[in-house]
């Protein structure tokens, strides 16, 4: 529970962590609004409430380290350094979007940042992360791969296979399970037969650790150790991050399967941003005004981005058939 290493981060790193978490939160709150206003096409799944995971993980990674994400991918994208304006444009379906408007929320990616894609197939990411780790191992780059999977996705065969496979080859990959308590409407305590996902680590011959996902420092510390092990060639680690999501499964979800006041309590007592702020200000590492400035900055950023996305060029019909193959 008590966080060690994370609290010793440099001032710059702490600011970066907060800025990134805040950017994700603002992004998601704004997506919620824009979706409600009918401005955004497609299905969107919001990451609000889970920011400490993406940022606690990705702060350990650089552009050559790789991550595989899920349908709930905005947070991972931002944490991995994807251009926020490009993301907005993508959600809007603009040809200037990060994926030229062809992917959308569920397929947002930027390989140059090591972000190998959101994935609309639950369990689609883990095998791919195994591949990224295999490349790192074969090319001896010292890089790692991280795959984010939900509690629901933890029950997918592809996920299980990937853990065993990674362990057999001692690949530098982290299996981060973001257990937010639900897979759509289904409770994770029910669908994960062994209760906690961390209990599965021994079945795949790897260490496992469970962390409080509202606590950036807890996530950051646990991941730090796992990344070190991975870079040292000691193989994969399973990390279960426990927390809750602030919104429904996707926009439009009635959330009737949730407990009364569940979200209110989450927002009040388990907001990773508030907790972070309290921790760093109490410890005298950052001041409220440092953080307030960031809040302003990210709010402005969203305004700018949304404005840009609204006015961004639309795809033209000829783009329908481009970029299927490199050559055909």
């Amino acid at each position, binding site marked *: 529970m008590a966080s060690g290493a994370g609290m010793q981060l440099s001032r710059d790193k702490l600011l970066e962590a907060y800025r990134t978490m805040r950017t994700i939160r603002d992004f998601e709150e704004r997506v919620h609004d824009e979706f409600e206003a009918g401005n955004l096409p497609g299905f969107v799944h919001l990451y609000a409430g889970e920011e400490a995971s993406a940022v606690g993980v990705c702060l350990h990674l650089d552009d050559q380290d790789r991550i595989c994400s899920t349908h709930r991918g905005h947070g991972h994208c931002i944490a991995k350094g994807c251009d926020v304006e490009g993301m907005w444009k993508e959600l809007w379906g603009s040809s200037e979007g990060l994926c030229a408007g062809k992917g959308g929320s569920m397929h947002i990616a930027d390989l140059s940042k090591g972000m190998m894609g959101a994935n609309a197939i639950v369990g689609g990411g883990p095998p791919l992360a195994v591949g990224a780790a295999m490349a790192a191992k074969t090319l001896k780059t010292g890089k790692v791969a991280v795959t984010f999977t939900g509690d629901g996705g933890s029950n997918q065969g592809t996920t299980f296979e990937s853990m065993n496979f990674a362990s057999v080859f001692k690949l530098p990959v982290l299996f981060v399970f973001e257990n937010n308590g639900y897979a759509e409407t289904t409770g994770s305590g029910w669908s994960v037969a062994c209760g906690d996902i961390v209990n599965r680590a021994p079945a795949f011959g790897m260490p496992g650790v469970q962390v409080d996902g509202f606590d950036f420092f807890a996530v950051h510390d646990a991941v730090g150790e796992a990344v070190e092990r991975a870079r040292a060639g000691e193989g994969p680690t399973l990390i279960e991050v426990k927390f809750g999501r602030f919104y429904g499964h996707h926009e439009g979800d009635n959330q009737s399967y949730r407990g*009364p006041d569940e979200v209110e309590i989450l927002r009040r007592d388990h907001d990773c941003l508030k907790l972070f702020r309290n921790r760093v200000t109490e410890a005298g590492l950052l001041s409220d005004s440092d953080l307030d400035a960031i809040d302003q900055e990210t709010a402005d950023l969203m305004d700018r981005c949304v404005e840009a996305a609204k006015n961004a060029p639309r795809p033209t019909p000829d783009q329908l058939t481009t970029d299927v193959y490199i050559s055909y």
Partner: protein
Amino acid sequence: MARIISMRKAINEAIRQCMEEDPTVILLGEDVAGGEGSPGADDAWGGDMGITKGLQPQFGKDRVMDTPISESAIMGCAVGAAASGLRPIAELMFVDFMGVCFDQIMNQAAKFRYMFGGKAQTPVVIRTQIGAGYNAAAQHSQCLYPMFAHIPGIKCVIPSSAYDTKGLLIQAVRDNDPVIFFEHKVMYDEVSDDVPKEAYAIPFGEANIVRDGGDITIVAMARMVHKAKEAAEVLAREGIECQIVDPRTISPLDEDTIIECVEETGRLIVVDEAYPRCNMGTDIAALAAREAFGALKAPIQVVSPPHVPVPFAPELEEAFIPSPEKIADAVRKTVSYGA
């Protein structure tokens, strides 16, 4: 008196009536009721599109089951149970997910009867969503039914009206072979028509002539039936009369009706929302080129999307889906061939 209900309602009603008439019918899939193991309400969603809402309250948790996200286990559970005395209806939420569970369909359910020398009976129904139109992009918008039609041993149903949906789904549940039931997600609410209240079954392998017309035969499936109808309206004003044939089941396929129609009109186009290679369009075109060649007065056009994944942006997705305009163009080209 007409009783106009949506495809959404027709499916729910068909399942309900099947479950009422036969206690061995069970329903399983991810969130088909919604709320299992969660602190709040049960039957919270009734399926990701709300189609199966109300069934768990009526039939209980032993017969209407949410499941973990484990499609191979879901499909296998349904298939194995079907070979053991139940008539399960399993939901594969989107057909796009077949890639994580196709073995249980293709190599198990489809082949049991043959491999086991006629001894097995596997009355399973797999309901799944197909189609583009919701900007759900590359992994939630595919049709893929041609891959299922390719496999011997399964039956493939792809309805275009609420009436057909109800009758074909009831037939699917009563049928003793494995059936894949393809539901176009956009049609749940887009399509409503007159549906009898009581249970009825529509036999498989009987195409429906949706529109009469002597100039050309259009074979279309699912949502494309409606696009073809729109095109036909426009063309009628130009003096071109289209006959529209909806096969309703693509495996078995009512070859006789299609051939007869083509022999009457001498012209064929097929409209298929599936990717263009090895799809139902080519399947039916090849059928006509083999069996109705002598009657053909013009090349057979297939109107399908281009050979590309389904794009996200609304403009691109719209350009992807065969439109009434494209269908009409293909018809005009065909009708004016050689003229």
